[in-house]
């Protein structure tokens, strides 16, 4: 039973691959099928994780500045042909996305803002339709990326939720909408810095932090703490098969932070000496739980049992309208797992890239909206979507 319907109504069912979906909906494929056959995703591997894998090697702040400058410089694209619309969105998005320090969702938001700017619609309705189409295209580009979907949706809600839409003068309304779009982009972009500042209070001198996965937000937090001359040490899980642990350790070593690498199985063993656990998030769901790299749930469970606080650092655009009831209630996101030795042919491999951690194991969420408890996520979403 590999087909799972996501609780979030995704457009992919309509846009993308109706044919490949129907057989799987009608009858569950026999269990002996390997996962690759059933997965309707055109890429057998989640593009999101591919990109992240590429990015892991490069982290510099120069890119950051360049990206910022590029926003200002970016010329208005004049694409009169309607058929080129989706293309340009994806192109812009790709441009942004390649910058390693820019989160995917922020790239999408920037791309959508550019859509507004370049739009030739003459009425609000048209503009909204264009935006919706662009957003759907972006979302369908990688359906497994929660933050992308969430970011696009939040952008749409944020931008259209203004009384500017009632202005009679279209240009004024459009300018207003554009302003909001760019503001949202700015907020999302600065989110990491805000989170880093907010979380400084939680890192005290002499503490030991356990980190899992390579999250740029968490890296930002630790960087800021190091810059503030706090004395702490970090335990990194190896993060197989992505090798995130090694990369993170490399970065932290550059900051002169004492780092210790653990294999994933050694988490419970070392939990005694840990003071807190910090994760990033791929997405924060409506129940207050997080979806993150595979292994997060395990570590959260162990930490909860041993009464260690678990903090999640996530930007607010990652709040998604999903509500998984269990691990399998998510969109499957697969990635290749290399065991180092060839796997015998009849053996299956669990290739899911992420898991869901329920909210009762999380202590706090560090977001750009503040330091919140998990139950706040739903509040925010309700207010935004109401």
């Amino acid at each position, binding site marked *: *039973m590999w087909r799972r319907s996501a609780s979030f109504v995704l457009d992919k069912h309509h846009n993308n691959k109706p044919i490949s979906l129907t057989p799987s909906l009608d009858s569950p494929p026999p269990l002996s099928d390997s996962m690759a056959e059933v997965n309707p995703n055109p890429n057998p591997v989640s593009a999101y994780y591919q990109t992240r894998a590429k990015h892991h090697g490069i982290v510099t702040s120069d890119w950051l500045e360049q990206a910022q400058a590029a926003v200002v410089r970016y010329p208005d694209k004049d694409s009169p042909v309607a058929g080129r619309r989706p293309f340009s969105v994806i192109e812009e998005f790709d441009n942004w996305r390649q910058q390693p320090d820019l989160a995917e969702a922020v790239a999408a938001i920037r791309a959508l803002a550019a859509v507004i700017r370049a739009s030739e619609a003459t009425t609000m309705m048209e503009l909204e339709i264009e935006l919706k189409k662009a957003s759907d295209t972006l979302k369908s580009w990688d359906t497994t990326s929660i933050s992308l979907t969430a970011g696009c949706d939040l952008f749409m809600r944020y931008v259209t939720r203004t009384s500017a839409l009632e202005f009679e003068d279209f240009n004024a309304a459009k300018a207003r909408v554009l302003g909001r779009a760019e503001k949202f982009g700015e907020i999302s972009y600065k989110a990491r810095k805000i989170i880093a500042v907010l979380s400084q209070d939680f890192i005290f001198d002499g503490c030991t932090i356990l980190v899992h996965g390579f999250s740029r937000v968490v890296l930002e937090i630790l960087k800021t703490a190091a810059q503030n001359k706090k004395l702490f040490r970090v335990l990194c899980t190896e993060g197989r098969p992505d090798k995130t642990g090694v990369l993170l350790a490399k970065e932290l070593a550059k900051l002169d932070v004492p780092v210790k690498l653990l294999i994933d199985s050694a988490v419970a063993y070392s939990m005694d000496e840990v003071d807190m656990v910090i994760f990033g998030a791929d997405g924060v769901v*409506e129940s207050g739980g997080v979806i993150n790299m595979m292994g997060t749930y395990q570590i959260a469970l162990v930490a909860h049992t041993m009464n260690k606080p678990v903090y999640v650092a996530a930007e607010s655009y990652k709040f998604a309208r999903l*509500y998984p009831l269990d691990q399998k209630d998510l969109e499957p996101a697969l990635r290749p797992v290399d065991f180092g030795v060839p796997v015998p042919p009849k053996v299956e491999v669990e290739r899911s890239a992420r898991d869901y951690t329920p*909210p009762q194991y999380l202590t706090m969420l560090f977001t750009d909206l503040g330091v919140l408890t998990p139950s706040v996520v*739903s*509040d925010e979403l*309700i207010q935004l979507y*109401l």
Partner: protein
Amino acid sequence: MESRRNPRAVVDPKVRQVGFFTSSQPDSTYQPDPIASESHPVVSSISPSGNSLSPVMIPPPRHNSSDTFPLRAAAAASAVSPSSFSYSTRRDFPDGSMTASPGRVSRASFSKPSSSLPGVGMDSMAAAKSSSVPASGLTTVSVVNMPPGLSEKESDQKKNSKPLKEKTTKAERRALQEAQRAAKAAAKAEGGKAPLVSSGSVASTNVKVTKPAKPSSQKNDVAAVAAGPSEKKGGQAEKDRKKDAPHPRMQYDDESRVVKAKRRAVVKQTEAKNRVELFRHLPQYEHGTQLPDLETKFFQLDPMHPAVYKVGLQYLSGDISGGNARCIAMLQAFQEVVKDYSTPSEKTLNRDMTAKISSYVSFLIECRPLSVSMGNAIRFVKNRIAKLPITLSESEAKAALQSDIERFINEKIVMADTVIVKHAVTKIRDGDVLLTYGSPTAVEMVLLHAHELKKKFRVLVVDSRPKLEGQLLLRRLIKRGINCTYTHINAVSYIMHEVTKVFLGASSVLSNGTVYSRVGTASVAMVASAFRVPVLVCCEAYKFHERVQLDSICSNELGDPNAISKVRGREDINYLDGLTNNANLQFLNLMYDATPSDYISMIITDYGMVPPTSVPVIVREYQKEHSLV
């Protein structure tokens, strides 16, 4: 709150004395709590002697028909109470017999909108305070009842009132009165007129909480003593009559108010004889007695609109049950009312219509206590009436009202259900085994829709006596070809291991995430949670309420006790025949229970799927929406 049992005090096992026993409490100033007093502040027993102990010793006269009223048990000991009951008492009567008198204290006139008795609360307390015990060494401790449910009531004026009540056996009360009368005579001689007069206003207050019209002999004795206030009483009675409907969540253990309500009542209910002490604050009537009576009166009831009457009868007989159905029926009846309405001369439409609606609501309450959904709908209707601009002509106003009600039904119930179904079906996967309890309309729609979408699942319907509502659901599902299993609630832990999801309905969801639903729901949810099965509650947002309830006792509904004593169609196992009036046997047929939020995984509403912690947010947004609309 811990309950300390007083080891010496147990005379009657039915009476449990719980709480903080103090020997004396010489409070001369008013203290909100706890104060030593034990019965409601019948003014007649106010003694000016300044003896600070137990103010009012005259207990309220008992209901005539019951000579076998069990002593009131203090409920605090029961697992109930995080709700703030603080009780207790210990008294030594002069004749040595003990009474248990923790009473449930209801607030005096906590919701009477009339301001005829402005300082009610304070005064009654003062009365309670100043009245004293005849020098018999009575020690009492106050009984303060602050059911959480009452917090939502208009707490403007009456908040501080804590009239006290107690229940004792007739013999004990008699003895008490004798003693008190003697003391009173003595005290009066000391020039106690002044305090009596000063507490004349109190008397008027107390009129509300006592039973001025009760013909019982004890009362007469008492009344005779309080000569001063009696004139006031008469005056007050008039005002009382003019008041609005009794508050929908009136506490029925306060007999004065019950009597007053009865006086105004259209439906003549007879109180059940044998009632469980713990639930004395809920109304319990003999079932089946009023229906024929009401039916004959159908064409004679002038003030009552026939549509409302019909709905009331349907409630009484149980034809309409279920939160949505009741609410829709009531709203449609109100639409009829509006249609047939014509403003009498010299009255404004707003006020008069509101008064009419209130009177209809009180009739409906008499037929069957309001559900939360109905309460919210009524509040909406009254809100709309109040917001009607004065400038509208009558026909325009009526049309506007009717369309508002129509819109409410459509948006909040019908469309909300479609949205809920849309969200919920995404959670149903092929191969699921879904458990449901009772017959919730929302869940039924979800299951039928999922079946239409060709999802492969099977349903487990859990049912319970005496209503056996699950059978209705079962019928409808089977007709559509859904694979079903049927079982009783006794077997729920047996079958839970094969269940993948539990879908429940709700009568209401409260602000702390507690789900208030058909009795048995909590058990099913708890078993599911023990088996780590996710529990999904489907509930429209208009059923959310801002009150908080911590247990199933402080607010509930009692059904027909005969329903549990008999099994229909099985006369051979009718072992309880003839025992229904036995003093040692009390039947308890609860209709609702409260499921704590820990057992709920998610709530599916028309606002989407939310965790139980987000209910207050929705309530807040909902109010905002309403105030703008």
